[in-house]
């Protein structure tokens, strides 16, 4: 038993729903009690889908348990087939139905429906959403894809985009365009917008592009083995990764590298206005694939310092740990959001790149934040074209990450005129909306814009101060430091003091520390 407040991933059957909802002509019959239909609203509300997920829930009740839940399942499956006439069905159980052990696969087989019926075995009490998506897609591919003659021209399949994915729709468009510049057409994109008939003709492609290992790695490995289709290992998020990806495709196909078009990110990062980005301390957390990609971009393409890197999906723990090591870090692999919050509070980064959860943590701690990975909320399904992959994705990422920060010249002005009554740090970056609050004339002692950490305090650990105390005048001086670097200054000073056995921080200690950490 494990106490959870917020979860990064849903149960595995929600992963199966992400596959079913992405596809067309497929129907999912889910043995589940009333209430499990909540999952529909993830798709219709958060992603604003204009169709219900193609899922039939058997909706068994307590009174059915002693009686005949198996027949309930059979009726539901038969009715769903008659009503929706799918090309194929997937059948399975949610967490409660798993306990009553009705065997949806066997029951569906007994119906002898005239279409392929693919049983799913998704252990709800040990696995989670990404596993559910990956396993479901693999089972569908295994059941339907057969070896076949390759297309004359070089083609590929795009594997992995699902419903409720982070920018999957736009990534597909961007990669299709990018591969088009090499003369490579997309044979099938799956699961997004694919029918079971499309899955059956996956084998016509010369190779597979594995877009998201979280949802399609097992299927890609199966196709490599069963259909002899190689797949790409590089996930093209960021300028460098996109170039590596194109090189990988060129090697696989023997086609020449295309000319780069539309890439602005490297020049934007090189332009002098971006100098202020140098060495900004970022904390990165998300699914393994997006977190690793974000760290590479942050460190190599924007010039940030990566101070924390982690992922919530244990399946990707190994590559995330390896990536973290290259930045001299120990990866944070956890799905406990309080643990992530405590780590962020401890590190006091200047920017957080994370999920919807980290967005909330950032808001509480007063740290700028940009979203890089699922799970995300409705505002991260933008109306505009906004990919993460390819060269346009690199442009989008640059804009998205820089936006939450105070801009270079403004940063200087804030430092110079920190006492100005309307141009002070509680006013926030000037290019963001919202009314600037007038600065309180006498600073309130308890208020600290770097953010206290309530939950950590509740655990009885005072993360920030330790044994060191701040003398009043030093604390006043600290408050004069702009909010976006105050957390770092506080942390550095305290570490400096602690390392030297100083227990009371004076103004001198503060500036000694500043000199010590100067770079």
């Amino acid at each position, binding site marked *: *038993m*494990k106490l*959870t407040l917020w979860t990064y991933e849903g*149960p595995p059957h929600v992963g199966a729903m992400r596959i079913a909802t992405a596809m067309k002509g497929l129907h999912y019959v889910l043995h589940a009690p009333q209430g499990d239909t909540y999952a529909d609203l993830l798709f219709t509300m958060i992603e604003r889908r204009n169709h219900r997920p193609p899922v039939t829930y058997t*909706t068994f009740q307590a009174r*059915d348990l002693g009686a005949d839940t198996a027949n309930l399942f059979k009726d539901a499956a038969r*009715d769903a087939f008659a009503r929706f006439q799918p090309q194929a069905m997937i059948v399975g159980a949610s*967490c409660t139905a798993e306990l009553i052990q009705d065997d949806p696969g066997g029951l569906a087989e007994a119906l002898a429906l005239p279409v392929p019926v693919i049983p799913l075995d998704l252990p709800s009490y040990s696995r989670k959403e990404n596993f559910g998506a990956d396993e479901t897609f693999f089972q569908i591919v295994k059941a339907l894809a057969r070896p076949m003659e390759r297309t004359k021209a070089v083609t590929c399949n795009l594997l992995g985009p699902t419903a409720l994915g982070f920018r999957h729709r736009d990534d597909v468009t961007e990669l299709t365009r990018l591969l088009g510049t090499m003369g490579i057409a997309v044979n099938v994109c799956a699961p997004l917008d694919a029918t079971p008939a499309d899955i059956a003709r996956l084998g016509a492609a010369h190779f597979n592009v594995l877009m998201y290992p979280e949802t399609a790695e097992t299927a890609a490995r199966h196709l490599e083995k069963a259909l002899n289709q190689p797949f790409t290992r590089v996930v093209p998020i960021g300028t460098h990764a996109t170039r590596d990806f194109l090189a990988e495709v060129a090697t696989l196909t023997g086609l020449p590298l295309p000319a780069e078009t539309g890439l602005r990110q490297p020049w934007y990062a090189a332009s002098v206005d971006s100098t202020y980005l140098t060495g900004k301390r970022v904390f990165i957390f998300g699914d393994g694939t997006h977190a690793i990609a974000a760290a590479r971009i942050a460190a190599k393409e924007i010039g940030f310092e990566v101070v924390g890197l982690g992922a919530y999906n244990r399946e990707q723990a190994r590559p995330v740990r390896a990536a973290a090591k290259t930045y001299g870090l120990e990866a944070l692999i956890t799905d406990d959001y309080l643990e992530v919050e405590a780590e962020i509070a401890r590190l006091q980064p200047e920017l957080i790149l994370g999920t919807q959860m980290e967005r909330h943590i950032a808001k509480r701690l007063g740290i700028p934040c940009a979203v890089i990975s699922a799970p995300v909320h409705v505002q991260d399904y933008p109306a505009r074209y906004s990919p993460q992959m390819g060269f346009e994705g690199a442009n989008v990422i640059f804009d998205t990450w820089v936006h939450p920060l105070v801009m270079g010249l403004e940063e200087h002005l804030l430092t110079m005129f920190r006492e100005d009554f309307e141009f002070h740090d509680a006013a926030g970056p000037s290019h963001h909306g919202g009314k600037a609050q007038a600065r309180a004339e006498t600073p309130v002692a308890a208020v600290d814009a770097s953010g206290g950490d309530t939950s950590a305090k509740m655990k009885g650990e005072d993360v920030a101060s330790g044994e060191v105390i701040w003398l009043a005048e030093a604390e006043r001086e600290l408050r004069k430091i702009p909010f976006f670097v105050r957390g770092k200054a506080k942390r550095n000073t305290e570490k400096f003091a602690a390392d030297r056995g100083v227990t009371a921080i004076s103004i001198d200690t503060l500036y000694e520390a500043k000199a010590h950490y100067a770079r």
Partner: protein
Amino acid sequence: MSLDTPPRGCSDTPVLKERGQREVFCGLTGIVWLHRKMQDAFFLVVGSRTCAHLLQAAAGVMIFAEPRFGTAILEEKDLAGLADANAELDREVARLLSRRPDIRQLFLVGSCPSEVIKLDLARAAERLNATHAPHVRVLNYSGSGIETTFTEGEDACLEAMVPGLPATQDEGLLVVGALPDVVEDQMLGLLAAIGVPNVRCLPARRSSELPAAGPRTRVALVQPFLGATHAALVKRGAQPVSAPFPFGAEGTTLWLHAVAQAFGIPRDRVEAVIAAPRARAERALATVSETLRGKRIFFFPDSQLEIPLARFLARECGMVPVEVGVPYLHRELMGPELDLLPEGPVLSEGQDVERQLDRVRTAQPDLTVCGLGLANPLEAEGLATKWAIELVFTPVHFYEQAADLAGLFARPLRRRALLTPEAAE
């Protein structure tokens, strides 16, 4: 508007009973508002990752640093008997309470998986009470989807509190149902002015304000989904007040009169108190209902508020209910409402969502009230919708909110007219 019973209400209307896929939340969802209402309570769901995910999705955004609810997620080893689930639960509760010393009431909330594996949360609550009383009272109820639908979770929660209410011999009124604080205060003001003695609320905002119940306690419900709590209080000897629910000016008036009558308070005293707020409500309603008059409305089953709301919209806003679906029909509590609801709509109980969708497509109502899973798909098909869950999350009871309640239904129609003027007549 008339307070007369229409020549024929819906009391004798045959009910279409449906069985099939239900597009309704389970009772766990009630935690989303109950944990805000009871400020020193924590709700610990004993369930699966699905339960945690449901609460997170139903809560919309994760706005709380540390919400006063959580899920003790059952894991493989709990099910395989490798771990003693009770020992695990005790450990998690102890951890939780040591971290949240502000918590005075802890609800262990049963879920589908905990019910199916027959984890006895009543005994667990007893055991934990022995450890943590008197600082924390531990109670239990089930919010599982196999037993409860959406708002029935609040019913189960309040029912669980009934045995722990202190006894009293005093005359008084117990108002049952979680109301937003501002509405509760308005109601208490009205009842005080009318002269109703000793008014208390269940649930109370804090555990120290727990109301008492006894043979001279009158019980009035402000929410239509509290049948089990109602029965438990009556079983303790309290006397029920039968009335329509206080939605709209008419519902509020009838509810207050019924309460006053139970205490032998003369009608003219009530009339004197309500004259001004009632006139205000009617004035405000007259404006809002212009958008609604003559429009046809279809209710999917959701919160159990459907019948009282259909009555309000039909009688005070001039809408025409086409179908009124409810998760279940509680004849006794709904009696006064069915008497008032004008004859005409199909009354349906339970759900087969596919067949109901067929009916709504045939009916082509002007407004469809449904859950969040159906709203956008129906909008995409050209039907205007109102999300039912907003009706439970918004202050809608009593006079001052009557026009706001009507406004919730008018807004989707006004919005449509704004965005596609050519589609609106």
